[in-house]
């Protein structure tokens, strides 16, 4: 093992270093940040048998081009359906591949999805703030945004030829048509008609979408006399309604408190795919009870951990594969005619 270096040749806006997030400081106005799609992010690390929360690159639709200065280094790319170009060859996302010194990898938006993840077989050296390298877009605290010319150092860098190739996607990993929520905690500020409109009408993702939140176009939900309520805590997934009646889903870099009433809260499990929607995409909300939300959280945790374990499971090395073939061959050779 040695160190490898990756040079950023091109990076669009909002291409950042992220780890699993910065927890425990909501009380000080510090949201967790971390990946927009936590499942995609964890999958990239798991595909390289790395700890699922370790620092990786989050790529926006602005795209990213990396050049390997020192290597070789194996990378895993997951997230939305982005397109990869390596040595003038195009690949679809969800790949493990190895970059040799001098080789360039480009990642750009594809058929769907807003975020891609690049994990490394090693450890990216990153600035930490409050114990985490997660980058908050508002302040750029943490590992920070990537821009052209920046060189990333990867320690304990490895080439893992046995892991190269396509990564199997999680089940149902596609742009969602329906997003599950629990109502509230401030649904009392909305009329029965508004709650009905929220649960039955379609919403469209607007262009105002970044790591802080996703503003929606849809039925007007102007809250009743709620503009002067005391500011209340916000959590990732809160659906707040501003005075103009429009809803915004707060995401990874959300403010921690706010005075707009929250009509509903998106289940943590549905936030990952939600973040892959793009401006113009249409979806609806499905209300579940908090009891159902709890059961969903438990079931989904089980499914995800089984999936990630499978991704991380040891792969046969090339030598082992040859050995297996030889053994099989040997058995066949020894079979009497």
């Amino acid at each position, binding site marked *: 093992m040695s160190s490898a270096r990756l040079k950023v040749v091109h990076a669009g806006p909002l291409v950042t270093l992220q780890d699993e997030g910065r927890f425990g400081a909501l009380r*000080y*106005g510090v949201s967790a940040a971390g990946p927009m799609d936590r499942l995609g992010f964890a999958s990239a690390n798991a595909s390289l048998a790395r700890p699922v929360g370790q620092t990786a690159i989050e790529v926006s639709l602005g795209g990213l081009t990396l050049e390997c200065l020192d290597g070789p280094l194996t990378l895993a790319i997951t997230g939305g359906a982005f397109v990869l170009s390596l040595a003038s060859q195009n690949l679809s996302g969800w790949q493990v591949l190895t970059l040799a010194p001098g080789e360039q990898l480009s990642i750009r938006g594809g058929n769907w999805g807003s975020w891609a993840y690049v994990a490394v077989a090693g450890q990216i050296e990153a600035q930490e703030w409050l114990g985490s390298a997660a980058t908050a877009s508002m*302040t750029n605290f943490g590992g920070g945004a990537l821009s052209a010319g920046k060189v990333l150092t990867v320690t304990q860098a490895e080439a893992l030829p046995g892991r190269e190739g396509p990564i199997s996607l999680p089940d149902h990993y596609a742009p969602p048509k329906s997003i599950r929520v629990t109502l509230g905690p401030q649904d009392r500020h909305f009329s029965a008609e508004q709650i009905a409109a929220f649960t039955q009408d379609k919403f469209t993702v607007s262009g105002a979408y970044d790591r802080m939140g996703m503003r929606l176009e849809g039925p007007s939900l102007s809250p009743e006399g709620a503009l002067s309520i005391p500011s*209340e*805590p916000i*959590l990732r997934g809160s659906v707040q309604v501003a005075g103009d009646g429009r809803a915004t889903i707060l995401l990874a870099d959300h403010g921690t408190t706010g005075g707009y009433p929250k009509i509903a*809260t998106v289940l943590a499990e549905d936030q990952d795919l939600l973040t892959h929607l793009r401006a113009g995409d249409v979806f609806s909300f499905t209300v579940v009870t908090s009891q159902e*939300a709890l059961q969903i959280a*438990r079931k989904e945790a089980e499914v995800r951990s089984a999936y990630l374990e499978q991704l991380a499971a040891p792969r046969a090395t090339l030598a082992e594969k040859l050995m297996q073939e030889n053994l099989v061959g040997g058995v066949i050779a020894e079979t009497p005619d």
Partner: protein
Amino acid sequence: MITPSFRPIAGHAVLVELATEISEEVADAIVSLDRAIQEAGIEGVRETTPALVNLLVIFDPLVTDHAQVGAAVSALLPLPEKGGAAVNTREVDVCYEDGLCPDLDAVAQATGGSHESVISAHLAGDYRVGMYGFAPGFAYLAGVPEGAQVPRKPAPVRGIPAGSVMVAGPQCIVTTVKMPTGWSIIGRSPTQIMLSDPDKPFLFDVGDRVQFRRISRDDYERAVS
């Protein structure tokens, strides 16, 4: 005595509501309850966010559930009477001199006073940290006296530097990072609010008292150099 209500959120949080209106009594109760929750080390509780009339409890759904968290929080009641825990008073230096107080003129005009009357009013306030929000380390300090109270500007102004001391209505914030804001900037502080220490990331805890102290331009320049 305040009896909380519990609102379950998604599969992993509970909002503990103590009141719908802001009061000193409610603020004290939130600080006490928040402290009690942290000291109790309730199984599965990951994090709490205290705010003005309620506090958010985020939990691990694999370990506990909404009802168990609600029961564990209820079991901490009744809360100890006020005075159970010491209240910290934090001192924050402010320089109100030219170039560091772009909105002092406007605030003086709006309040029908002078630079000095606004400054005196601001210094006379007995401030309390109500909650954090908006950006890392932005602590909402309640208690701006009327002589320094102005409404928010109609539109936010960009690029307000860290350390700005700004007011809107009865609230004051000492900023920690460069931000756009619609609040009025009446001075600049060299006091470090953002300590960047994982064990004590910021100077204030919710519930702390804050006292502002006037410093000269020279003192300010020395402090930031």
